[in-house]
């Protein structure tokens, strides 16, 4: 009898253990890899009953993956994906309606206009210029101060930028040029820029990392990476171009008919919480919740006053067209000889 009881107790324990194993929540994200451990730790502390499985890639890849899996979605939630991508996903019916707790306090730029919301934003990021001061001064060249500067022949073969098809940073830069300069002049600008470009990179971080180590002296890149690399003591000038910088909002949402819908909502609630916002504020100079933002070391303090007048909805609605045209013009053209 005693043994029996023992066995039952153990079986019961195993059963209970099995049941209380954390629920697996698959989250697709374009957040930078080095930001994720802090987010994971914070969420785990708040919700130990849910285990996050991150699928991380560049914005374009995550967007394409979600669209490709439309018929049988693998993701439960989306985190830190460009709002322009969220709009495209939403137009395909991929995002479920859910307004997270506290959404009403968010900056209007960070909110979907629908009620209930299909996505909500957590932080704003921009594309600026990383310039390697050491490499430029060795060549006797000035640090560029504007987008127009980058088209000067003196910088031929010295600039890298992210490919807008794969990188959200690349897309927001292109979207801003098209809106700031107007479409025709925007494409003409990119034609001139193209003759100075060495490579169109997969990720929005790579151009700044390459600029930091001098592999390509100038990189158009995500502001967060510029601050990180400069903070690591590398010879970088972080340039906010005089014309203004393009920006987009990192946003979260619940996948329509997600397998773990309730957990996904819990996750999005966390993503909009003050705790999470404080983590974003370490990386970005503008976050969704009021009163949380603080100056980010190594980013120009006035960055937020230089944001270009950009309508994210326009970029979102034209995302496919912009990428197709960009690819036609520049992707099938080999990188210029140095």
């Amino acid at each position, binding site marked *: 009898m005693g043994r029996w009881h023992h066995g039952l107790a153990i079986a019961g324990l195993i059963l209970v253990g099995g049941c209380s194993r954390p629920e697996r929540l*698959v989250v697709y994200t374009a957040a930078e*890899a*080095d930001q994720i*451990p802090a987010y994971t730790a914070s969420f785990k502390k708040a919700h130990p009953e849910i285990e996050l*499985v*991150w*699928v*991380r890639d560049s914005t*374009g*890849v995550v967007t*394409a*993956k979600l*669209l*490709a899996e439309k018929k*049988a979605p*693998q993701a439960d939630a989306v985190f830190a994906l460009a709002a322009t991508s969220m709009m495209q996903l939403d137009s395909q019916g991929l995002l479920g309606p859910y307004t997270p707790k506290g959404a009403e306090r968010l900056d209007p730029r960070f909110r979907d206009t629908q009620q209930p919301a299909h996505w909500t934003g957590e932080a704003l990021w921009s594309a600026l210029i990383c310039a390697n001061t*050491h490499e430029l001064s060795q060549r006797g060249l000035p640090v560029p101060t504007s987008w127009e500067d980058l088209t000067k022949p003196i910088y031929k073969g010295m600039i890298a930028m992210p490919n807008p*098809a*794969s990188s959200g940073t690349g897309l927001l830069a292109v979207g801003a040029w098209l809106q700031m300069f107007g479409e025709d002049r925007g494409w003409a600008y990119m034609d001139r820029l193209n003759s100075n470009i*060495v*490579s169109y*990179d*997969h*990720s929005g*971080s*790579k*151009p*700044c*990392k*390459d600029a*930091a*180590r*001098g*592999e*390509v002296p100038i990189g158009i890149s995500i502001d967060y990476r510029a601050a990180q690399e400069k903070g*690591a*003591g*590398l*010879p970088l000038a972080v340039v906010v171009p005089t014309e203004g910088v393009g920006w987009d909002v990192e946003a979260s949402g619940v996948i329509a008919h997600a397998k773990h819908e309730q957990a996904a909502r819990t996750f999005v609630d966390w993503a909009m919480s003050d705790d999470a916002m404080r983590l974003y504020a370490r990386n970005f100079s503008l976050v969704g919740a009021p009163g949380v933002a603080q100056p980010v070391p190594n980013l120009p303090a006035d960055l937020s006053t230089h944001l270009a007048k950009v309508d994210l909805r326009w970029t979102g609605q034209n995302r496919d067209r912009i990428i197709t045209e960009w690819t036609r013009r520049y*992707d*099938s*053209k*080999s*990188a*210029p000889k*140095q």
Partner: protein
Amino acid sequence: MTLPKGPSAGLLLLIFAVALALFFGAPLGELAWRSLSAADGGLTLAHYAEYLTSPGLQRSLVNTAVLGAWVVALVTPAAFLIAYGLERTRLPLKGMLASLAAAPLLVPSLLPALALVYLFGRQGLLKPMLGGWTIYGAPGLVIADSIAALPHAVVILRTALSGADARLYEQAKLLGASGWKRFWTITLPGCRHGLVAAALVVFALTIADVGAPKVVGGGFDVLALDIYKQVIGQQNFEMGAVVAIMLLLPTAAAILFERHAASRQAASVSAQAKAYHPEPDRGRDLVVGIGCVLIALAIAAVMATAQLAAVVRQWPYDLSLTGIHYDFDRYDGGGWSAITNSVMLALVTAVVGTVLAFVGAYLAERSQAGRGLKRVYSVLALGPAAVPGLALGLGFALFFNDPANPLHLIYGTVGILIAANVVHFFTVAHLTSVSMLKSLDPAFEPAARVLGRGGLTLFGRVIAPLSAPALVEIALYLFVNAMTTVSVVVFLYPPEFKLAAVAVLNMDDAGDSAPAAAMGMLILYVNIAARIVGGLALRRLARRSTPVETPDTVLAGVAP
């Protein structure tokens, strides 16, 4: 214990054949089907038309062919020189030369490419040597792929050079032919099949590689990179399938032609041949030796640079040493678990693949199964070598991702990775098993029947133990390749099971080349350890039984 007798052996072999058809034939069929299917489900050539009219394609096609030709032109003579040095000279330190020449087999092809950037990139150590040129584009790609392909060509040419008949050389010498003349009239013609085979294998390997083009390709687009961009970047599987088929055709043609050449090579050495032993020749050894040393040094320099890049804080500004790039959790790619996952996958692939290939080969060679079935199985088993990993991997993704497929449940699991790896490297494992089994006395089976012993007893007690050295070689081959391959798994790995070789690619994509180099070198060390363990096992086996020749050509010869 009378299992594989007539009908039951036939049934087992049928199961093997069906399994190969399901895990090799069907994914390829799906790949071809998807490249031809329209959105409404009908047949169409629209995808091909779309791709063929895109300006990028013609460039990719030409680039791919140019790249393949350059690598063949560089690697074939270099590999011949090394093989000649190892087989036909009295050079010292041959073991070291052979190890260095084989080293690129133990790393993903991304690693030599990464090292080249550190050596010849815009901040490269040796950049001043290039006089204004940079490594990006065709030059870097040709060098990186040459390093990756060299060991395969060396193995093939060593086999070709080792089978010489000493009598020919003795007679030529008696007739007064000079050393140079003997080389041109006996040595070169004697290994012409080997040269052709090496060139074809190198071509197939090079055009199928996606690692080097990603790292140093610059704007030099090739077909393999197009597949990757279509599938990963745009998630356009139909277009990916189209390009995969375009890559598959020349690869398959090259490998089938190579098999044909190899079968003729096997018959070219007569049974009465006398083994050739190189005589002393200072001049010859000096010339060949210098060439070999230069090539070996280049490989060593590439590996050393990768290791240096991995431990230097910030190339080129801060050359202090640091372990910070080994903190893999800070980067894309899955952290340290990527390495343990890869080791686990490689171990399971080695065990499963060795058992399946050997049992299949036994049934197809020595059982009483029907002759027609045996032929079908042998043909199926030769197929995987002709298919580039990207094409097979994409075929797997398309075939198993279909929810209507009963085998769908392995999609997104480790199971699909094991299956894809086993299939991808199956041909070499099969051919090695076959030549091992052919070397065993055909009288075993009749004797077992006379003694009333079942096939299983014979297999377990006699055949498998006698074949142990070949089994170790096969397992080692599968392990090393499963550790280094990117192409066959890159479309298949589940998000919570990242792999080391893929991590190298993803970290470099995000601009983190130092951690990528660190991870690549870890793969090298794991593979060296595996080789040492395998070598010790082989040594113990050699002490136990009479040595059996292992078919080296087969082992490293064919494996895009």
